[in-house]
């Protein structure tokens, strides 16, 4: 079965090691701006969340240069750097803000699941990132979306004083 990258955002402490591991795996460089996973910290809210590509594929059809395809082995999005012009359409259509542009090459950065062995999952000290069989991973997605509706974290916040 295909595997899926999911997150358990309640466990994320916002250390951003996943970003460094991502840029290191792909470029042998340490640079969050070259990462395909992005940790959002809102310091004044209880938010530390890894934003990652859910491999929905909206960008595939949107790309005007046919630079984006799906790897059938891993189910991951692949960007062909020879075709990518850095036009930004994939970023534009990505509903999650998961896609970005490499500041050095000017090409799109989209998660390729590290060919089925995501480095971010390996390095996460909190097990906030998981790479699971798709049917197991679906439960985490359901939990995430049900939490969105419960808003339980924001209820803890008192008024600003």
């Amino acid at each position: 079965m295909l595997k899926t990258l999911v997150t358990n955002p309640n466990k994320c402490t916002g250390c951003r090691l996943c970003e460094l591991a991502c840029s290191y795996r792909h470029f042998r460089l340490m640079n969050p701006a070259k990462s395909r996973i992005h940790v959002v910290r809102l310091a004044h809210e209880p938010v530390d969340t890894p934003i990652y590509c859910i491999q929905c594929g909206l960008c595939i059809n949107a790309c005007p240069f046919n630079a984006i395809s799906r790897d059938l082995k891993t189910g991951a999005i692949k960007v062909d750097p020879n075709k990518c012009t850095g036009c930004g359409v994939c970023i534009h259509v990505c509903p999650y803000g998961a896609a970005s542009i490499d500041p050095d090459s000017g090409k799109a950065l989209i998660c390729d699941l590290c060919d089925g062995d995501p480095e971010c999952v390996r390095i996460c000290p909190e097990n906030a990132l998981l790479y699971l069989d798709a049917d197991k991973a679906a439960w985490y997605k359901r939990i995430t979306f049900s939490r969105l509706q419960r808003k339980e974290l924001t209820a803890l916040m008192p008024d600003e004083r």
Partner: protein
Amino acid sequence: MGDEKLYGYAGKILRINLSKGKIVKEDTRIELLKLYLGGTGYAARILWDELEKGIDPLSPQNKLIASTGPLTGTLTPSSGSVEFCFKSPLTGIFGQARAGGRFGPKLKFAGYDFLVVEGAAEKPVYINIYNDDVEIRNASHIWGKTVHETCKILLEEVGDLDASIACIGPGGERLIRFASIMVDYDRAAGRCGGGAVMGSKKLKAIVVNGDRSIEAARPDEFYEAAKEALEVVGRKRMDLGRLGTIGGLTRLNESGALSAKNFQTCYYEYAENLSGEELARKYLIKRRACFSCPIGCGRYVAVPSGPYATPPHEGAEYETTDMLGVQPLLRELEPVIRAGYLCNTYGIDTISAGNVIAFAIEAFERGLISEEDTGGLKLRWGDPEACLKLLEMIIERRKIGDLLAEGVRRAAEKIGRGAEDFACHGKGLEIPAHDTRGTSKNLAIQYAIGNPRGACHIEPLWSPLWDFSRAELGLRELGLPWPPPESRFVEVGVRRGEACRILWLFGELASILGVCRFALQGEENSIMTPRRLSALVSALTGWDLDPKDLLLIADRVYTLKRCFNVREGISRRDDRLPKRMMEPLASGPTKGQRVENLDAMLDEVYEALGWDKETGKPKKEKLRELGLEDVAEVIWR
């Protein structure tokens, strides 16, 4: 020399003169890096070279350096450091203060190892940095705002929600001598009054972001070393991560090492009420980590309602809880959380604030200050309302608060009539939440020597690791005397000098390399030992530095900082403990403990450090060994 490619470093220094409005980018000097590596080492050399002796720390002549080390911003665990260096307005000697968060890493990603701020602006300004784009901007609209307000406004104003901010609150603007520099809302470079230095320069904030890379010389080797270090340091998640630094509070109490009641005792019967468990049960929203940290000791907490309602923030760590809770004998966490939050958002150091509050309560009790001084406020032990009101008075510099805002040394001098006897500071730095008598004799020596920044428990290192916790830290092979004495209270003849020296030099590496000290403190299988640091630094920079090389560099830095202080007039006479530390503890398991033979202990340490026993200056031959001949010429002139 100029052609050598730098690995691990950003390679540039950003120098901003606020008097002239001038922005200069210079190369980080390789020949200096090889001697000092970076962080507070390189910064100490800049301050030694560029500051005139005897300048007023609050004048434009002072410089403020935000420094990073080679490991900062890398895959090394807990490398989210920024170390601010300056001449301290609180102590008049070398000032340094570290913050976690991600300011340090962001500075490197913007392309700079160091930011040096010189001069002073006429009107409030902030500095905005994104890679090569550096601007000095008007900050009139945020002058007077709290730290939390400032962060919120500036992130929106620069339009980059991922930028990092170092700023001051009203505390720094009002030149409170223990004002902190706050990073990313709640991470504090708290000690030594760096916030007042920023305030004197009319510098409200520094905003930084960038998209540059850090590259390792030997990438695969570096990654292996980093992953091993992450796994090892990550083991601290089970204790330090689970309950935060406050988790140790009750354990310290059981050992008779929990400082209370302005250091009259080391035992508090209501410690359980202020424990890490209590915090986790009632007020913890989530754990938070600094950049690249697998420990995650940060506590994101709030008090949702009631008289002490407090918005969510990172706070209630151990030092804050002891100094603002145990010291004044408060019996519940809520006012302590509230007080810590006020310190953060108004930008003052929680340790110094707690120290001066406890001092004031005792002074009031002894009739040395009166209701006239306090504006009618009755100061009593265990009174949360009074503590919070007094804290507000300090923040606003109102009545007695104006005097306390000068720090405990100046306040005691002004009050006189014996107030100095219970003003607990070392070289003007308020003693933190650890008492020399209840903890260990290593700490007594460390507070007395106070190099570089005055009495501090963790700079350069929590040295009771040896005689209190009996941890080896991978230092035995480098000469750490073993075993430590059976009792932590034995004073002389147990090789404390050698032990302290090596522990301090090891700790110095944290601020030089740009990592959190917690990643260096603990059992050997849970820390970055000298060997692990050596593997990381060597693979990162490509310079092969074995543990001995690292300690030699640390020695050079540690000694240079002492020389900076010697140049400012520090000598053996100043290597003292406050009178209180020579008196017996009043209660608890360590009742009766006191420091008896400080001079003999100091002799042992001077000997080990290569310092002259009469003057306390590093000896000429010691300085020559370290390649500091030019420094020797100045201090032995």
